[in-house]
């Protein structure tokens, strides 16, 4: 089953992070990438550009309105994602717990729906 892991972050955390801890974090991400790649579970993933570069598009009355920033404004925002294929939901949650941002903010685990279906 495929899962989307959504990584949340808050700029406030990054601003106060000491350099050694930041180095450690980058190392943890590299180790995580290596683990999920070698296990054959990694399908896709990316870090998102800074929250200030996000735009929200809403079509109202046939007109597209574009506003700066994410749709839901909050202290935390979406910072990146992984798509993984795991044996179980428990395994996906286990992977989410290894993502460093889970300690500072949160990682959401969303099952992706299959494109195929059983006969009804």
């Amino acid at each position, binding site marked *: 089953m495929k899962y989307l892991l959504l990584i949340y972050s808050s700029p406030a955390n990054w601003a106060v992070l000491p350099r050694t801890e930041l180095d450690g974090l980058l190392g943890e991400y590299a180790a995580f990438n290596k683990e999920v790649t070698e*296990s*054959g579970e990694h*399908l896709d993933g990316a870090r998102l550009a800074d929250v200030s570069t996000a735009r929200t598009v809403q079509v109202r009355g046939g007109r597209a309105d574009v506003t700066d920033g994410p749709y839901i404004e909050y202290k935390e925002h979406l910072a990146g994602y992984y798509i993984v*294929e795991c044996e179980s939901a428990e395994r996906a949650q286990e992977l989410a717990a290894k993502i460093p941002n889970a300690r500072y903010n949160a990682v959401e685990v969303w099952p992706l729906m*299959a494109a195929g*279906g059983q006969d*009804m």
Partner: protein
Amino acid sequence: VTGPLQVEGLLRELAPQVLGAVLRRGADFGVAEDAVQEALLAAAVRWPEQGIPDSPAGWLITVAARKLVDWRRRETARRPKEAAAVDWVPADDLRSPAPDAAGPAHDDSLLLLFLCCHPALPRPAQVALTLRAVGGLTTAEIARAFLVPETTMARRITRGKRRITQAGARFTLPRAAERPQRLAAILEVLYLIFNEGYTASSGTALQRRDLTVEAIRLTRALRDQAPQEGEVAGLLALMLLTDARRDARTDARGALVPLAEQDRSRWDYAQIAEGLSLVAATLAERTVGPYQVQAAIAAVHAEATQAQDTDWLQIAGLYRLLEHLDPNPVVTLNRAVAVAMVDGPQAGLAMVDALDDDPRLAHHHRLAAVRAHLLEMTGDLPGARACYEQAARATASAPEQDYLRTRAARLRER
């Protein structure tokens, strides 16, 4: 002139035979498999232009052997001390295979299936290796069929091969005592490949149709090697009878069409005929297994030219037998539908209610979907609607969710 498709078909046929020949000369599985893939790729490029050689298998074995020798030489040049420890094929053994060097082809794909479906491997690796080593598909083709990146699929294959070597698995038949269990694992992998292709909705369907065709081809080849195994014939029949419905199971937009509403003139009757004769032959045996019974159920559906002609009494009986062979609540759920068709929806609902506390079905969309269907039969439309909506929230499949929501919406408008 030979077309690329014709060459592709031939290469897939020859793949296990060539790998078997290289392995029987003592090469390590992982390295031998890579060498055979390279030989297949070389042939896929060369044969359509230059024609198929007189002994295609001999050609492939020679090219694979040369790859092994080249790699070994390069390795020796790079790391002279370690080279001695590398357990590869003695170069001379491989240099000049006899014209008929392919050897006893009939055994090879069965032995390879036992290797690829070795219990030390995780399921996704078993599937990928089976398609590559036995099916002769490339990593890119397998990756496309399973909708994962090629690098991911390559990792699964590499890890799988490493596990095979670590487990000390040999290119021989497993011990007689282990064989039934090991054969069951092979059948599971083949059925998984089939379902991955069959349950795909249209849209991306073109690539995935490859998987059903490939699963049927491999199962057919397995049956040739193990004609006495009723379950192999049963699985082949089940695949043929299920796949015969492929054109009728989705509509033009790719939405699922339930069995009862399918346009049965679009079923593949040549495939149905083959499936029916397999079922007739295997059911005559003294012992039957779950695949044979599932095939028999598919056969009863296939024999009804209109949905209302379906022999539900027989289907209910077959589900009872299946429940006995392979007790699990999903089978009971299917039997409830058949019982409802024979004795009325209340009888089916009573069976569904009895499954409510089964932890294996908790949050399972099929429980709610079947209840919805049976409630609709009783005329309890609000109850049916609520259950369809509950099932739609629980399913993990997009086309199933579309179907269940449409069903609920239809009831809302009545």
